[in-house]
């Protein structure tokens, strides 16, 4: 074995020189400068799983609307404890089908953790302590539709159910029409004597409005498409329009309050699969749900009505993690959904936190800051034209081309392709995937890590002994969020002692002042409400006998710890 390793390393040394922080000779080669269909993502997960059977398990957690498997890879050091007994990090991507790169970013994390494990001490310790559950695409049907069927950068946002979007009693009777056959739905313009636009003589891709006293040449007609049902509107009843991120069971509201909601929480099988997995895995203590775009680290609440759900103690932890994230991901800003963005009921991040007490962020991937390291703003057309001229060399834009339209006559079709704007151009994908992965690793690192320390014994005479132990949480996230404590979402942490006869048991409120809360029932197994981050709790027993005893800590979100004398 050792010999083989040496051989491999020496071959690699001949061809590659290690760049810091990157797997330089990975077993699984994945190009992180392109996007993968559902099948592509799954194939890569399978390769990772086959290459690292001792670090991964690959499973389907449920089926999509069209029957695809929602694939989820578990990553941990399986030789160090049970995966579902370690504090865990949930990562998913692509809940909005057009917000594709969450799939690649989540895949990158899986790839990075497994490929770095062999020679990086930090990752080894991380995977000894923690479990990652990674589902790169929780909307696989419409992910493929986005890639393979005509779409804009914003469609479809839903899954593949087809509803009656325009309320005329028919479903899906006026879908997108790819008139120029290039897979992107762009814009239509037409020459018109009353038009107020001209093509910029210095850059004919750009339509500019003429001065008030000037005559224009073109008018905008809107999205590339046809009026298929004869109701005077174009592309108004396609796939969707429901929103998978309005389908979660925390303060869920119906469609007339929260547009995009369906019938009840978890109407969608994809979300139900995630919910059921999370309910079955109370060890999940942190979560990330990737979206695009704009460069944001979002936390809840999604709606102002839920402000009381997030209290000061938890917000302090959210702030500490995300402020570090802002440093790790230049151009990303830490924001709160309801006040910095818009109001959302039934969003995923609110369910994870409000219903399960899991510290959760949604990163809105891709920021235009990454283009020229300037804050030109989201969707700045001037900047985008410049990007396409100097960085992507025209590959992101469909030049205006004439088309004979059945309703409008001669039109010109053109504009930015669907893979530009919200999605990263290839050359920015790997770097931003790494930075976001590093943030989720930091987040996972700060899920609780418990240890038993400072076990003190005091002889009380008469064969009685006092034992005081400190249960320390070495990380920032507590075993129970304040939301969890408010509703008793998760069971308490148990600190038990075996090997001594327990006569009384206490939680220590103030050791110096000898203030204790006695637990009369089952004093050998003290129920502790919470073990706060970077801090600890003390327990006290009065025992007789017990020259060798063991103290065990058992926490759903904090994992297990043990100490023996």
């Amino acid at each position, binding site marked *: 074995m050792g010999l083989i390793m040496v051989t491999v390393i020496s071959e690699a040394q001949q061809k590659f020189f290690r760049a810091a922080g990157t797997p330089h000779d990975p077993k699984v080669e994945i190009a992180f400068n392109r996007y993968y269909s559902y099948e592509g993502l799954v194939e890569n997960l399978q390769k990772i799983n086959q290459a690292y059977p001792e670090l991964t398990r690959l499973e389907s957690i449920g089926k999509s609307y069209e029957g695809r498997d929602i694939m989820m890879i578990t990553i941990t050091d399986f030789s160090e404890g049970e995966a579902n007994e370690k504090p865990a990090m949930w990562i998913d991507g692509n809940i909005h089908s057009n917000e594709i790169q969450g799939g690649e970013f989540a895949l990158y994390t899986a790839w990075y953790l497994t490929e770095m494990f062999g020679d990086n001490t930090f990752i080894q310790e991380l995977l000894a302590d923690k479990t990652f559950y990674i589902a790169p695409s929780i909307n696989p049907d419409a992910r493929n539709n986005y890639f393979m069927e005509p779409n804009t950068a914003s469609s479809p946002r839903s899954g593949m159910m087809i509803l*009656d979007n325009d*309320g005329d009693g028919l479903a899906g009777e006026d879908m997108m029409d790819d008139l120029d056959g290039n897979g992107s739905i762009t814009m239509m313009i037409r020459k018109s004597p009353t038009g107020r636009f001209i093509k910029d003589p210095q850059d004919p891709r750009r339509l500019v409005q003429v001065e008030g006293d000037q005559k224009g040449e073109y008018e905008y007609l809107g999205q590339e498409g046809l009026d298929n049902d004869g109701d005077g509107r174009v592309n108004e009843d396609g796939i969707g329009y429901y929103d998978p991120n309005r389908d979660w069971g925390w303060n869920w509201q*119906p469609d007339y*309050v929260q547009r995009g909601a369906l019938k*009840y929480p978890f109407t969608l099988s994809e979300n139900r699969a995630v919910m059921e997995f999370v309910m079955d895995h109370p060890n999940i203590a942190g979560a990330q749900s990737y979206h695009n775009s704009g460069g944001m680290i979002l936390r809840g609440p999604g709606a102002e*009505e839920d402000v009381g759900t997030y209290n000061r103690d938890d917000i302090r932890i959210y702030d500490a993690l995300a402020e570090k994230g802002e440093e790790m991901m230049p151009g990303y800003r830490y924001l709160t959904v309801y006040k910095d963005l818009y109001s959302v009921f039934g969003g995923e991040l609110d369910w994870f936190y409000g219903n399960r007490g899991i510290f959760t962020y949604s990163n809105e991937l891709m920021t235009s800051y990454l283009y020229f390291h300037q804050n030109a703003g989201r969707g700045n057309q001037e900047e985008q034209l410049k990007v396409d001229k100097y960085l992507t060399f025209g590959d992101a834009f469909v030049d205006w081309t004439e088309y004979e339209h059945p309703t409008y006559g001669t039109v010109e079709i053109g504009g930015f392709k669907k893979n530009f704007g919200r999605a990263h151009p290839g050359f920015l994908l790997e770097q931003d995937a790494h930075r976001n992965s590093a943030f989720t690793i930091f987040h996972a690192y700060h899920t609780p890590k418990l240890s038993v320390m400072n076990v003190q014994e005091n002889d009380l005479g008469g064969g009685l002994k006092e034992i005081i132990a400190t249960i320390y949480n070495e990380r920032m996230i507590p075993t129970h969020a304040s939301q969890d404590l408010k*509703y008793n*979402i998760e069971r308490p942490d148990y600190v038990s002692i075996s090997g001594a006869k327990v006569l009384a048991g206490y939680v220590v409120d103030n050791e110096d002042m000898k203030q204790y809360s006695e637990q009369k029932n089952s004093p050998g197994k003290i129920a502790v409400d919470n073990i706060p981050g970077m801090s600890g709790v003390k327990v006290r027993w009065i025992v007789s006998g017990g020259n060798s005893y063991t103290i065990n800590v058992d926490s759903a979100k904090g994992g297990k710890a043990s100490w023996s004398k």
Partner: protein
Amino acid sequence: MKKILFTGLLLAAFSLPDRVMGQTDYPTLSEVNSRVASIASNGSAELITLTKTEGGEDILVLKIGTGNMDEKPAIAVVGGAEGFHVLSVELALQFAEKLVNDHADVLEKTSFYIFPNMSPDAYQQYHSSLKYHRRGNTMELDHDRDGEKGENGYTDLNGDGMITWMRVEDSLGEYMISEEDERVLVKADRSKGQSGSYSVFMESKDDDDDGKFAEDPPEGIAFNKSLTYKFPVFEPLAGDIAASPVETRALLDYLFEQWNIFAFVTFSPANNLSTPLKHNSSEARKRVVSSILAGDQKINKLVSDKYKEVVSQKAFQQTNQGTDGDFFQWAYFHFGRMSFSTPGYWTPEFGGKSNAEANYLAWADSLGWKDSFVPWTEINHPDFPGKKVEVGGIKPFVMVNPPFEKVGQIADEHTEFILALASMQPSLELYNLEVEDLGNGLSRVSVDLYNNSPLPTHTELGDRSRWLRKIRIDMDLDDDRLISGSKIATLEMLGAYEKASMSWVVRGKGDVTLKVGASHVGFITETINL
């Protein structure tokens, strides 16, 4: 979803239950199911099994109608919202029986969906060897959120086959003997200088040794606490996520596909028929609407007036106008339909007693009912050594379910009420159809669409919902014949006795067809001769 159409041949396998003749008590679940099957043997009824509960019981719906029943306005009648409310199942069943046997003419204009029992798991407790007020299904649930499921239920301490109450003599207790009836315990009002002398618990032991009694009974989620409107998250009998029981989801999935339901009548503890819901403008204006809207309050008032005209019992202490997560409020607030609920029965005011239990006992005594109270009797309770513990109290079920012989009249009156509601349903009619010759082969077609009903076509809230269809107006003719007017148009709603005028300019000769309607208000088709 399994559809069962009962043919005559299959029917022979079922014996027709003699529902009125032999019955002296509320039916068992199997009797309910065989009566449902018997109703389904009628040509106008279809029986559909929506799902099975965790306890393995069928959730059934009888769809009753004639002709194109999906295009006629429909009323949904729901029983068994609460498992302990066995009367509600009987009322839904008797309505269905009377409908198909005695009132089939109503089906010309109205279709019906009858969900006889939404809580079959809990319903069975009425006939079980241990009787108690049960709400939950058979899902496993950790009601007290201590990490263990169903670890401290009830114990029949006096061995009488039912769960009543236990009172413990306790100078620190919160309860005292009621001044209105010495059998009744009431909370001492400390603001009036009263002190308690009893602690009161459900009849139980502290099985899990945590100092609490019957705090985690071995039952699951209550249907009538599982819906999405004001879902009481994390509360006992509700669970963590709205609509988590399979029966709740199966019902909702089904309802979301039945576009023709315009109104619900639910037999459940809530009552908005004796008194209509009250509009509160600030709650109604909120984004998360939490008061009936002003226009819909008028509907509720109108229907409530009809209820009081038909149903003889006068309201007394009918203060429950909805509880969090219940079905009746869901049908309005989250489904946008007209929604009415009544318990069907309550104890009338008797003898000037303000306490509901004292009032019930006084009334029961006056009628000579022997089966209403378990006298307080001392027992030895292992959790209260040295203390006097007595078991007793009003028997389960009796305050919400009358003796069975009373049900006939209640069912007759409530059937009459539902039929009266059907007769009020929105009804589209066309008036003033005119064809004017404009010359050169052009004609102007104009018509008034009229809602000949005291009820609007849409609730004000339903008008905001995508799950209640707009009125669609289709003028069926070739594109090149239409000079003006829409081929397809939608109309948001028509109020009570309101009209909308429409016109088209059409070229050429030949009949054109105008079709107007929506599933929940019916469709009308008119051929216009040009």
